[in-house]
């Protein structure tokens, strides 16, 4: 049996926070793509399941110098320390219900295998995982719009963003019948990416220099000389990752021209930011 392709992908995303308007299209597109349920009261955000969540961040200044930015947060699909696939959530799952796909870089899972211990939720620094406290319920007839591409989850399991893996599968199926051994950039795009009316989300293969996401992020092939656990740091001075210094190596990058926004991506001790803000990958120290 031949393998469909031996090149490992590393799917990732870059979100332009200057373009993001906080409109919520990505959230709803994600929910309707992935059969995410809803319930009567969703204003307790701790139990509201949103694989993609848009956070509102302010610069903390008072009127009229205050500023706002919206930050969409899907699962960050962490590569873990050194990008070896030891994502925080994967490392702690006692059921092997979640694992790291070395061929895609996507943190995948089996909902039915999960027994609901929620260790992964505790381990995730990004609050990207959600627990089903209740069985999903749709108003009469509404289950007719559910998509067969994603299985509805049940009470007692954890779920999260999958980078719309089923779209990857569909693109590959198409490639198989066409006799191609790989998929095109535009064939596999997540539901949030295609929905974004501002075009703020760019998705693709971080390993593929022809892909837009690679060209924007310009990931550093070498580990960060300051912290060997950090791999794939962006060489674009306006690009950052959330809590980058943890070494979780997320595959979701953020882009902003505003310094305070980039600084908001992590917690810095006094003076730390000034030291680090001009450091963009190992090459900047060459």
């Amino acid at each position, binding site marked *: 049996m031949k393998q469909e392709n031996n090149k490992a992908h590393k799917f990732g995303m870059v979100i332009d926070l200057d373009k993001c308007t906080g409109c919520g299209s990505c959230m709803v597109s994600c929910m309707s793509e992935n059969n995410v349920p809803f319930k009567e009261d969703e204003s307790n955000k701790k139990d509201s399941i949103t694989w993609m969540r848009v956070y509102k961040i302010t610069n903390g200044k008072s009127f009229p110098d205050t500023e706002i930015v919206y930050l969409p947060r899907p699962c960050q699909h962490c590569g873990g320390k050194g990008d070896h696939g030891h994502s925080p959530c994967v490392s702690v799952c006692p059921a092997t219900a979640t694992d790291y796909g070395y061929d895609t870089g996507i943190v995948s899972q089996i909902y039915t295998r999960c027994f609901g211990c929620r260790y992964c939720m505790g381990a995730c620094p990004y609050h990207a995982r959600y627990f089903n406290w209740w069985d999903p319920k749709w108003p009469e007839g509404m289950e007719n719009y559910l998509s067969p591409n994603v299985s509805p989850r049940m009470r007692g399991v954890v779920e999260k963003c999958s980078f719309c893996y089923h779209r990857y599968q569909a693109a590959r199926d198409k490639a198989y019948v066409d006799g191609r051994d790989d998929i095109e950039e535009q064939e596999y795009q997540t539901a949030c990416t295609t929905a974004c009316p*501002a075009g703020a989300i760019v998705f693709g293969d971080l390993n593929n220099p022809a892909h837009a996401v690679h060209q924007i992020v310009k990931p550093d092939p070498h580990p960060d000389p300051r912290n060997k656990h950090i791999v794939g740091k962006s060489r674009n001075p306006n690009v950052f990752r959330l809590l980058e210094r943890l070494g979780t190596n997320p595959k979701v990058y953020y882009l902003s021209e505003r310094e305070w926004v980039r600084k908001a991506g992590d917690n810095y001790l006094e003076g730390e930011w000034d030291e680090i803000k001009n450091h963009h990958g190992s090459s900047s120290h060459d």
Partner: protein
Amino acid sequence: MKVDRRSFLGLGLGAVAGIAVSPVGIKLTDDSSIWTQNWPWTPVPVDGEVSYESSVCSLCPGSCGISVRKIGDRPVKIEGLAGHPINDGGACLHGIAGLQYLYDPSRVKTPLKKNGNTFEAISWEDAISLVAAKLADIRNSNAPERLAGIMDKDLGSVSALFKRFFNTFGSPNIYTLPTLESNLQATAATVHGKGQTIAFDLENADFVLSFGAGLIEGWGSPVNGFKANASRKERHAKLYQIEPRLSNTAANADKWIPVKPGTEADLALAMCAVILKKKLFDSKAVANFKGGVNKLNALLQKTYAPSKMAETTGVKSSDIDTIATLFAKAKMPVAVFGKGRGDGAQSLKELVAVHTLNCLVGNINKKGGAFVQPETAYLEFPAESMDSIATDGLTKAKAGRYAHQVFEKINAASQPVVEALFVYNANPCYTLHGADNIKKALGKIPFVVSFSSFLDETAKQADIILPIHTFVERLEDVPSCAGLAKSVVGLTKPVSPPIFDTKNPGDAIILIAKALEGDIAQSFEWDSYDDCLESVTPGIWDDLSEEGVAVISEGIPTGSVAVNVSFLADNPATVQAQGDDSLTLIPIDNMRLPSAGTAASPFAVKTVSDTILKGTDSVVEINPLTARGLEDRGYATLTTPMGTARVRVNLNEGMMPGVIGMVEGLGHDFDNKYVSNKGTNINDLIGPVIESGSGLDAAFGIKAKISKA
């Protein structure tokens, strides 16, 4: 041989051991784990062949192209349609959640007749004959003008059929609720003459001066607005946003200029004064001004000089000067008006004052400027057949200039002003200011017919409800509007068969017309709405049916446009907020909550932040300086001259001191637990303030006080 305890022990142990080494254990463990992973009540979506159908979303004036993914016959996902001239791929959250409206718990599933306090299901035949009988009575009493109608908009063939029905019936009393398009038309009518509308070339402008227009919060055609904004970033064009609150648009802008609520007109006129005084205007354009600008200039320099307006507006006189200069000196400037979404209450003085900035700098019908163009016309209806009752009826005076005045008149009169009311696709009992008074007026109308997909606040007041298809189930032409620089007609197609016993609203009105017989029936000779649509769109039907979209006009309109600023030169009064309290309550338009038309979907409500809605409470925004004694997230009592609401407080530095902001689109009251009974409807707290001269409800807010609850 005696069977004793040990024998039994042997028996038991043997049984256990026998079962243990048999496959029962391993098999049952496996089966029970599969069983617990596949509860029978967890739905299993049916698989099938994937197909895509393109259509148009008509939930808002945006008129975006959509692509509906279907599994077999079943639509499962709505997405933006790539290559569509308006939205090219993107979509807003409401359109994406569109399928939730199909199965909405508050859908009207069959024609309903009010019976005391409840509704009973009736057949379409019975419903149509009941409506026809009542209407025939009105005509027989020779007072056809006592049939009134309210529609959401005056665009497209279904609205045209309603108007045609009212004409042939003999009633001039058909109204639309205020929309951005109606406000643009009113502005164009005042400045340039009737029959025209205004559009903004936001995709090309290099300096956008927005007077509170929520360019990325649902103003105009929302997705087009998002795209224009994103391209503005790439083009390095500037956006200056003038409004009391750090809205998303203000946050995304290059500069936010906080202004006291309701003083936008004053600020715009102060900027006009700067441009005139410093002679920064385009002399060729000003030469087009009917009667010149001398009278206006004299008024502006005397009354609206920046030094005088600084106190009124809260904007420093030097800032007014700087911004006006930047605007006038920009290559392709455009001033945009229509606060929030641009629908609802607006002051004509403000709209005209802002548009005068465009006229002064000479950006009318120039790239990146404001386009003044004729209203989209593509419908060709055959001549109406009018009987004498209709001809006489149409000569009678309208009950009011706008819908609001009709309701006021009904409430004030002791005799019925309106005998019967048609409400199509509109929810005045929710969206108009002083919603309680509107409900009261509807209660006084003897016969209310609602053409609605949902049992919303207004449908609940009706005597007969004719359930209509949602946009996913119906055929309809959807012309673009709302400030879009190009004029496009899209075709909404039935991508799902009707889920319930509903009809296309066009078919419903054709059936009523036929039931009335005579000249009215003769004016509605089509077999169905589908036939009608094809026959009244002869010029574009081929494009519509084949491409799903027909482009009527794009590019820059040609020809010079007359400008008349006499409305402003007469110095109309600026509308003041009702009440005496020191704080001002203003509505906030939020992209995730529709304020007019169809209520939000469960998905849209789910995305709403807990700093806007918490549990069943609206959260109001207030600057910490103003919120003396109030705690963040704490309860408070908000009081206006119109009413009182228990709210929660969000201390927000993005709010101008002295102002309280409350989101629009909450506080619905109908049978959908995912959407209704959440928060307060701000229209219950704000009353209408009619602007003298225009007749528009121009209440930008209301005076209010807030105290710890």
